[in-house]
């Protein structure tokens, strides 16, 4: 696929359809892949990569890139197209300045899962018939492919591209995903158990803001948490309440707009399962307002920014048995 992508990108550069390509650049090892903009065929040939370890969602970069001169080619995985669409809906990306090629999605490999097996000195990772062959400085290691699948791909919601100008590879379907399983498990906990779970997770937070800054739904020009005039700006939480507040307010702010792309949890240096907060909102929105998938289209009205006479009342909180 990578070779076909480079070839197609070169064609589109050559015929003037686009003047830049948004993709990913190789790193020092197999896994340290960086989102990058390519201007020439030579750069593409030299550094472009899109393999099993290429996870980053590049949609958010297109906010800025679509405001530059000319048109940019973007390769989007199915999950990325939801983020892209949502940003179109929010008038953040200028659609006509992006040429979207839908590419097949995962499952992608998360190197953290390989490292969690105690495998170190990783130089290259190859998928050979669903067994990973990992070359390391200490020799060759193997592990089952499925044990290295990234968290965001484990609960993939869709193999379908919701927006594209052309497609490479076969189109897939929206999946019957297991993504709410863990949310349900949390819902079934007692309030105390749930509180303990989240305190345990959120107390690991180092407030690096990676989750917020990578999030395609977090596109405010200036975040309330960075704005001294907001009264709640903070660089470090002064107490555990503030620790919770940052993540919960963020989850509220992206509710109804979060497409569940999973980038927040992927980038968290402390492995906090932040996506679960967002999924709780998605699950609740689904059950209270009817099925809704942010980013699935660019025209529908989102439940939380729409009014219908039969919308649930605030009392629903108590009806659902708040402890």
């Amino acid at each position, binding site marked *: 696929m990578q070779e076909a992508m480079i070839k197609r990108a070169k064609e589109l550069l050559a015929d003037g359809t686009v003047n830049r390509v948004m993709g990913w650049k190789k*790193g*020092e*090892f197999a*896994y*340290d*892949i*960086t*989102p*990058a*903009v390519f201007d020439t065929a030579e750069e593409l040939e030299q550094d472009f990569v899109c393999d099993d370890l290429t996870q*980053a969602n590049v949609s958010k*970069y297109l906010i800025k890139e679509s405001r530059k001169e000319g048109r940019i080619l973007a390769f989007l995985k199915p999950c990325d197209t939801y983020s892209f669409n949502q940003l179109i809906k929010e008038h953040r990306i200028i659609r006509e300045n992006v040429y979207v090629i839908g590419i097949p999605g995962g499952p992608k490999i998360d190197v953290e899962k390989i*490292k*969690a*097996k*105690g495998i*170190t*000195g*990783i*130089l290259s990772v190859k998928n050979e018939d669903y067994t990973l062959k990992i070359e*390391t*400085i*200490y020799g060759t290691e193997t592990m089952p492919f499925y044990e290295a699948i990234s968290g965001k791909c484990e609960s993939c919601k869709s193999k379908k591209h919701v927006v594209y100008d052309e497609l490479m590879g076969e189109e897939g379907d929206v999946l019957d995903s297991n993504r709410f399983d863990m949310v349900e498990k949390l819902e079934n906990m007692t309030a105390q158990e749930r509180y303990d779970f989240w305190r345990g997770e959120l107390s*690991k937070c*180092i*407030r*690096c*803001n*990676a989750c*917020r*800054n*990578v999030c395609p739904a977090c596109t405010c020009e*200036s975040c309330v948490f*960075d704005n*001294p005039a907001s009264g709640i700006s*903070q*660089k*470090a*939480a*002064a107490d555990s309440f503030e620790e919770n507040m940052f993540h919960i307010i963020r989850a509220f702010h992206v509710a109804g707009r979060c497409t569940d792309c999973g980038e927040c949890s*992927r*980038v968290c*240096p*402390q*492995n906090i399962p932040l996506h679960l907060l967002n999924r709780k909102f998605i699950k609740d929105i689904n059950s209270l307002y009817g099925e809704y998938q942010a980013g699935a289209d660019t025209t529908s009205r989102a439940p939380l920014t729409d009014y219908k006479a039969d919308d649930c009342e605030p009392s629903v909180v108590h009806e659902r048995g708040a402890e």
Partner: protein
Amino acid sequence: MLKIAASRLNELFDAIAEKQTLYIPVDREPNTAEYKKYESGMTMSSALNTVRSAKDFFFPQTENLAEFKVEGKSIEVKDIRQENEDFVVFGVRACDARSFSILDKVFLSEPVDSFYKNRRDHGTIVTMACTKPAETCFCTVFGIDPTVPEGDVSVFSDGENYFFLDRTEKGTEFVKSVENFLEEGDAAKLAQVQEQARSVIKKLPLAGLSTDSFGGDKLNEHFNSEKWAELSEACIGCGTCTFVCPTCQCYDIRDFDTGHGIKRFRCWDSCMYSDFTKMAHGNPRTSQLERFRQRFMHKLVYFPANNDGEFGCVGCGRCLAKCPISMNIVKVMKALEVK
């Protein structure tokens, strides 16, 4: 050399913890380690390093500096400093051990930061030699020998035993305090283990990285490089690199109104953040390029300019592993290298 059998390590921990607070790296998840206050029965992590660095012990993410009582027009300052209790950090790697001497250059230079010094004075650092470095390791580039780490006491493992080498007065005192648990041991196997580690270290993928192109005298040449645009293009402006970095030491000072008094605290800050240099009437670094450049210029040029050529990086590799977009100091050094 004095040693203890690996199977008896916890006995040693129990004995240390009886006298002072002991911190050891423990696994939170497989191969994800963090320093924890030792409690009997805890197992020391076998992970190469902790996700957060050991700088937290001397320069914590937040700490209170003073308290104020404000009544009408009058203000009372409360000095809340207290003499720290003695503590031991066990299992610090060579990279983090070196980071302390880099932090010392900042915090112990005049005027001495008493908050930092207090912790430094009361902390005993027991380091652990590396036997299985990762692909992200490049401490040797900065003159660090991971098989012989600095610290008050260096500990070496041959797989079955831990050997102790005291290096400072504090270290000698520490070894003396636990000598009942130690016995003279044959270090022949240890020598083999070290030799093997050294041969791996020589072949590490980043071992050939060179610092020749950097230093205090390369100021404008690197500052004005055209490479920064491409290097910083994907940076999302988060603080992950800064916060996992053992040598990043920039901080913010803020006030917190508790409702019954004001606490003035300092917390880690990141030059990658958009408001880092923002003033009421302007900002000298308005783009991510400028903020990104600052972080690497600080480590590779500004810090050596002010500190006899010492770089502000210890090659621990945390930023390589944790940056959300996998941009890091190694890529920067390679791009800016003057061949």
